[in-house]
């Protein structure tokens, strides 16, 4: 039986206040289970990073969480809502329970401090009772896990390559053994060879440490291979959620289908591909109804007037998948 570790319910994020607020995340409900990799795919502006920042309450102003809850289930003890934590509680919650790896590792490490200083700082802040030797041992062990030799501990970020810096970031995220790791495009700046190595290492670490990953990327082909379940975001909403294999073989939302057809294949027959016509919606003037309808090849009248809900599609009768689309068989 899968147990949830992070439950996002009816989550809303706005940028700005009042009439002019831009609604970046709309009514997102998503559950991350223990030990799974949940992929969150979408184009730029679809709200995927905003969702990650919102969930961890890292959203800088003018971002405002305008509704919803994020329930965290610790391994022992009662579940609580992250949105109601006080500042002090939140400080304890971050790193120790949930950590986040940002897109540009180059920018997330402080260039004037050694890797060791930055790593020990994290441990010191959360486990002040540990002796300095124990902290160093812990940091070294973690770096070894992510494939960096202990003698690089005293290197400055500029002395490491991009891949190594990203490994350090992943190591830092895991050093307190959190339950949830949110990764916001952790490999986009890296080359494919390095990307694959880091992901393989992540899978291995997950098996050993048992954390769950919320993996955010625009590269759907990567997610299909790497994650257990995938949620696709478009215009601030989740439009489809399914197990990776189901989504790849049998996507139900026209946007997921278009996205999957936007990647040229490296193997198999060489097909003519078209991508998706039009351009991603402007959050300041979202289309009425389903936000994908102006680009959708199968849109009909209802799509432009009513917003489809994320429901279990009647045509598949599978509780593990849901889709927000008015096409026949897609609604409950």
């Amino acid at each position, binding site marked *: 039986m899968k147990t949830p570790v992070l439950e996002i319910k009816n989550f809303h994020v706005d940028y700005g206040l009042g009439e002019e607020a831009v609604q970046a995340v709309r009514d997102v409900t998503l559950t991350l289970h223990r030990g799974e990799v949940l992929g969150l795919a979408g184009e730029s502006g679809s709200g995927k990073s905003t969702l990650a920042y919102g969930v961890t309450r890292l959203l800088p102003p003018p971002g405002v969480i305008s509704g919803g809850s994020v329930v965290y289930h610790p391994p022992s003890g009662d579940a609580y809502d992250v949105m109601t934590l006080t500042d002090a509680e939140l400080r304890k919650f971050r790193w120790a329970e949930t950590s986040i790896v940002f897109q540009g590792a180059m920018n997330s490490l402080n260039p004037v401090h050694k890797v060791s200083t930055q790593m020990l700082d994290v441990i010191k802040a959360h486990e002040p009772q540990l002796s300095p030797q124990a902290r160093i041992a812990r940091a070294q062990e973690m770096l070894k896990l992510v494939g960096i030799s202990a003698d690089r501990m005293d290197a400055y970020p500029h002395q490491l390559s991009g891949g190594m810096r990203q490994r350090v970031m992943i190591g830092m995220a895991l050093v307190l053994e959190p339950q949830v790791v949110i990764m916001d495009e952790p490999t986009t700046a890296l*080359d494919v060879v390095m990307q694959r190595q880091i*992901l393989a290492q992540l899978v291995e670490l997950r098996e050993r440490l048992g954390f769950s990953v919320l993996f955010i990327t625009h590269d*759907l082909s990567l997610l299909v291979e790497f994650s257990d379940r995938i949620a696709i975001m478009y215009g601030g909403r989740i439009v489809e959620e399914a197990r990776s294999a189901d989504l790849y073989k049998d996507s139900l939302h026209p946007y997921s289908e278009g996205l999957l057809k936007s*990647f040229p294949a490296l193997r198999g027959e060489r097909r003519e591909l078209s991508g*998706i016509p039009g*351009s991603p919606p402007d959050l300041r003037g979202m289309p009425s109804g389903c936000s994908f309808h102006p680009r959708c090849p199968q849109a009909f009248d209802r799509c432009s007037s009513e917003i489809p809900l994320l429901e279990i599609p009647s045509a598949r009768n599978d509780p593990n998948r849901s889709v927000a689309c008015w096409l026949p068989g897609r609604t409950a």
Partner: protein
Amino acid sequence: MTVTETEVVLEAEGLTKHFPVRRGLRDLLTREHKAVHAVDDVKLTLRRGRVTALVGESGSGKSTVARLLAQLYARTSGDIRLHGEPVTVRGGRKFRAYCRQVQMIFQDPFASLNPTHTVRYHLTRSLRIHGRAGDLEDNLRDLLVQVQLTPPERYLDKFPHELSGGQRQRVSIARALGADPEALLADEPVSMLDVSIRLGVLNLLRDLKERLNLAILYITHDIASARYFADETLVMYAGRMVEGGDSETVTQNPAHPYTRLLIESAPDPDRLGELSTPEDQAGGEPPSLIAPPTGCRFNPRCVHAMPKCTTDLPPRFELPIAGHWAACWLYEEGAAQ
């Protein structure tokens, strides 16, 4: 499939670029002049109506090749020939004459368009500079229609911030076409764009290639898109070309161990579940280009490395399929496969 012979527009031979490294105080006492060996001995040919892809990871020198071909950098050595004529330009009138025929499209359409000017200004400048301002309004309209920004009136007076990424990249393609060039150098033209609109831009470039009979150099790190878009694919590693040939051949029967590594590492949705890593002895690290490895530059990472690989530089060896070659000692005549 063989590479069909059409007219050669631009070719480079022995193209080399070394960037000098600033000498510190201590270096003043030595004779040694350090340099970053960004591009070494590159040979490529752009033909009319054909797309040549240059694939490589970041730092492999692929963008440097484009800038050398565009004469934006002065080369250290080697030849660039336009229609068979060797050319060297250092700005001024000769540079304009050159870039009338060879135009470049940059990676980032957010940075390559001036935010304070309209689409009309960008395109007018391109037409004026290249002496095509005769029927200005008609030409402007034609350019926008060519890049499928229709109706043109709607886009002419927009500022870059009013356009989406894909539209901006189309404007920069239109600006390049304003010179009526024969060769386009596209440096990662779609990597900054949203996934769903990348193919639209690639299909547009392909369409332009066919209609205007352009020679296109397509620089990318995504070998799958090279297979989709390009006729011929060249693979670069650490400043050197390691493999080349027809795109289908290179991607389906990669010969060089680096190309194989690259293809095995590319995300492949058909390979569900098991996340395997291909063999790579250096953990994904490309070598330093200040002191590149002797012999084959891939030898520290190569699982097939032989003693010879560390000492001798492999030349191009022809492979059984016509037009396919690899710079690897594994393919030396009589070498054990």
